[in-house]
């Protein structure tokens, strides 16, 4: 059964120059236990998509369309109901681990509060156990001591693990990770990605991974949606996208990544209209394609 | 208001609280500099409060500058006594409504002395504005240069400058100013006022400049400049200073009302501008004595509006600058 079904999602902002669609008519499909990657450059609307799924878009924005989590429709839910979904059935991991954690409280407390918000009646001792186990699951050593540490006492990679631990503590069905590795250096990136894959294998949690980095998405996800300027320009299984990209923009993205076995030549830039700068061919824009 | 708020004590809160953060606007994104000026002005132009404030400030400035011209039109100097306008039997009460307003005396006369209020206000504006603006200029020069040096070069230089700042900020400035001013002779009082106010005022700006310089100095563009062989001075003045432009403008604008208030306060206490030279502070002090019988003499609204104008302008300026830097 489909875990996440998004249809015609549109997020509109009022601007002095008229309404602006940050996301327009987006469709997404994710199966239970699957992994979907959303790829695009800055401003493509990918982050806004993740926020909109959770109903966390800015107050000024208007959201329309349908977001179904299994059989529950999230759009139109009251704030109280949405709160029960957030952090419990759908959890989110953000880009900057340092600023995403409150510096005034221990990581233990921040994990505990997430758990206790959704499991009312949990005692502090039980919650603390949950927190320690969560830290252990993300391979943080000395978890029972480090649970009382503050965010600034962790390194960047470990902080991101903490956040992942926090997200997983309630055993959500879906995990949305918005650029989880962007703020980290390359070796740590690899570790986090391995962790995400391990978690998928062990718990069967669905994953939506948002990134601008094609390498990241190729490792972790099964399907990819390529976004540009708020719309989906191409979608498909990972291998297909990489070996046979159909849209000019996708192709340009792939071409922009220098490869070690390429001949020496010009680094191709991705131009505004999505066409390859060096190519004279233009392919009509496809608004999505066969999934 | 940098440093001289309500009771002229070192109230960090007022210095900090006139804006959007507990410090000055955050160190701006480098490179946002060049795009800054034009956009700021057009954004500010759309803000009613800022424009009103600016308008009043321009008005007062024009009045202050044109003081001699205006008084030659109105016919009275600030020092001439007009005995015909006051009633000696009533203890010097001005004759006529609204404190003696007439075709001769547009704003009425001063009770007790018969001096023309319009002239005194106009010249008082000159005194108040020139002192406040000079003090602001001096404070800005001192505060920015010392803050830059302390923030960029660090080490012992920073240690010395910071100690000096701590020392000056620990000083009960008001007491000291009053004591020094009352002990010294009355000549050059205006200059002395400017100096004394600035001596105690610059640390507040310097502290903020220092903080921002320290964070800017970590940025890549400074590293790049250093790698390209730029000397310390050059980096400080060509790379870092332009990025502080908005902070400096905002803090300077917010400093002016504080200094106007300080000068008025000192004059109120009798150690400011020496009589018979008119000063708004003095006039407030005198007018309060007469408030019960001659409320029209109560001059303070002019000062209030001027201070308010600067404060509003500085506040809106800070809001615009912050918004532009994407906070």
């Amino acid at each position, binding site marked *: 059964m489909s875990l996440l079904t998004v249809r015609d999602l549109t997020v509109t902002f009022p601007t002095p120059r008229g309404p602006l669609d940050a996301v327009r008519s987006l469709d997404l499909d994710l199966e239970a236990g699957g992994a979907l990657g959303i790829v695009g450059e800055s401003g493509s609307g990918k982050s806004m998509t993740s926020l909109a799924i959770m109903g966390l878009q800015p107050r000024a924005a208007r959201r329309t369309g349908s977001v179904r989590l299994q059989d529950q429709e999230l759009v139109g839910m009251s704030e109280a109901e949405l709160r029960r979904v957030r952090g419990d059935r759908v959890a989110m991991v953000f880009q900057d681990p340092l600023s995403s954690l409150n510096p005034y409280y221990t990581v233990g407390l921040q994990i505990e509060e997430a758990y206790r918000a959704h499991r009312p009646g949990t005692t502090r001792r039980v919650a603390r156990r949950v927190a320690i186990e969560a830290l252990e699951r993300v391979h943080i050593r000395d978890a029972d001591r480090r649970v009382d540490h503050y965010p600034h006492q962790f390194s960047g990679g470990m902080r991101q693990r903490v956040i992942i631990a926090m997200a997983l503590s309630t055993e959500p069905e879906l995990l949305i990770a918005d650029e989880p590795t962007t703020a980290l250096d390359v070796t740590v990136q690899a570790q986090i990605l391995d962790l995400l894959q391990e978690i998928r294998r062990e718990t069967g949690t669905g994953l939506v991974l948002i990134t601008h980095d094609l390498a990241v998405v190729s490792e972790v996800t099964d399907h990819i949606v390529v976004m540009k300027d708020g719309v989906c320009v191409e979608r498909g299984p990972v291998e297909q996208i990489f070996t046979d990209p159909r849209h000019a923009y996708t192709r340009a993205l792939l071409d922009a990544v220098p490869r070690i076995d390429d001949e020496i030549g010009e680094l191709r830039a991705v131009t505004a209209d999505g066409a390859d700068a060096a190519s004279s061919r233009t392919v009509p824009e496809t608004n999505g394609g066969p999934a | 208001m940098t440093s001289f708020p309500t009771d002229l004590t070192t*109230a960090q*809160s007022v210095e900090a*609280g006139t804006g959007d953060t507990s410090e000055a606007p955050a160190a701006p994104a480098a490179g946002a500099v060049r795009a800054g000026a034009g956009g700021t002005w057009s954004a500010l132009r759309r803000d009613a409060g800022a424009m009103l404030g600016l308008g009043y400030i321009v008005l007062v400035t024009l009045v202050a500058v044109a003081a001699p011209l205006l008084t030659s039109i109105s016919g009275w100097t600030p020092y001439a006594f007009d005995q015909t306008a006051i009633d000696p039997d009533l203890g010097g009460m001005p004759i006529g409504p609204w404190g003696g307003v007439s075709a001769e005396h547009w704003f009425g006369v001063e009770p007790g002395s018969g001096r023309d209020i319009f002239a005194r206000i106009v010249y008082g504006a000159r005194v108040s504005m020139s002192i406040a603006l000079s003090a602001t200029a001096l404070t800005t020069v001192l505060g920015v240069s010392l803050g830059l040096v302390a923030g960029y070069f660090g080490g012992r230089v920073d240690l010395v400058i910071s100690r000096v700042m701590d020392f000056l900020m620990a000083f009960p400035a008001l007491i000291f100013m009053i004591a020094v001013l009352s002990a010294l002779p009355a000549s050059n009082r205006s200059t002395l006022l400017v100096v004394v106010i600035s001596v105690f005022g610059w640390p507040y700006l310097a502290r903020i400049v220092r903080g921002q310089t320290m964070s800017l100095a970590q940025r890549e563009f400074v590293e790049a400049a250093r790698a390209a062989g730029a000397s310390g001075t050059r980096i400080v003045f060509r790379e870092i200073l332009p990025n502080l432009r908005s902070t400096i403008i905002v803090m300077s604008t917010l400093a002016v009302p504080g200094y106007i208030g300080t000068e008025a*306060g000192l004059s109120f206490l009798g150690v400011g501008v020496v009589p018979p030279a008119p000063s708004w502070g003095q006039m407030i002090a005198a007018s309060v004595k007469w408030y019960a019988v001659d409320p029209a003499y109560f001059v303070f609204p002019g000062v209030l509006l001027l201070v308010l104008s600067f404060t509003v302008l500085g506040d809106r300026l800070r809001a615009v600058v912050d918004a532009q830097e994407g906070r």
Partner: protein
Amino acid sequence: MPRFLLTRVTSGVGVLLLVCLFTFLVFFALSPDPAVQICGKNCTPEVIDQIRGNLGLDQPFWAQFFHFAVGIFAGRTYGAGAGAIECAAPCLGYSFQSSQAVWDMIVQRLPVSATIAVGAAVLWLLAGLAGGLLSAVKEGTFLDRFTTGLTLTSMSIPNYVLALVLQYVLVVKLQWLPFPQAVAFADDPGRWFANFVMPWIVLAVGYAAAYTRLTRANVLDVLHENYVRTAYAKGLPQALVWRRHALRPALTPVVTIFGMDFAGLLGGALITETVFGINGVGKMAADSIARNDQPVIMGVTLLAGFLVVVGNIVVDVVYTAIDPRVRVNA
């Protein structure tokens, strides 16, 4: 932690010594011969010389300063032989005007200034924090804009003006309050309280305005922080997000700033006390300046400097307790 405290205290002492030296220097250079002042009329040169000797005024500057500084810690003896006067530590000298020990004068008046400071502080904290929070919650609404206008205007009114106007309105016109008159708390609590109402209001107004803006700005800043977004993403109820994740980071800087403001105010609100005729440290400072009573001026200056330095240290310590990032952790 103790090492951190030690450095702060030592540098604080250093700053105080400098303040002391600087003040001493300025008055040494500026004031007319104190011996003549003390002697008053009907003076003879012999008496003047004797006074000079007693006070040590015939010594070079550094010697004078040294004796003064030592006197603060260990007490001091003026003169010699039969007529010698023992001045217990902390010895801040004797008033030229009243011959009272400066320290005693300060101690006598400090409770009054402290009362003003505490009362005003309670008022301005309540008003400022509540106002700021409310403005932040209702950001952009009419209430918010009105509050902003109100605070800006309040900060623009010179406090002596407010004092005089308030006095005129409340005492003379409306007669809600009696004329301020010195009375002990034990004798007439109502009257005692009434004495302080106006100074409290006058002082509180300016600070309340500033604190409202400060709190509002901090709360709004914090609400945009990523960790607040995380809190919402975790599905935490709004009240909890506000209480735990927004309030504490927002109020922390306010607490530290308050420490500094309060310390400064304890040293006496000069203008307010003068206007209302209240016998606190501030008024004593103003009077002694008018009468060129150097020892008193020195004493008050040192007191104010001391309070600020101590306030600084206390604030630093409190900050390490509140903000985990600042702690020197094990």
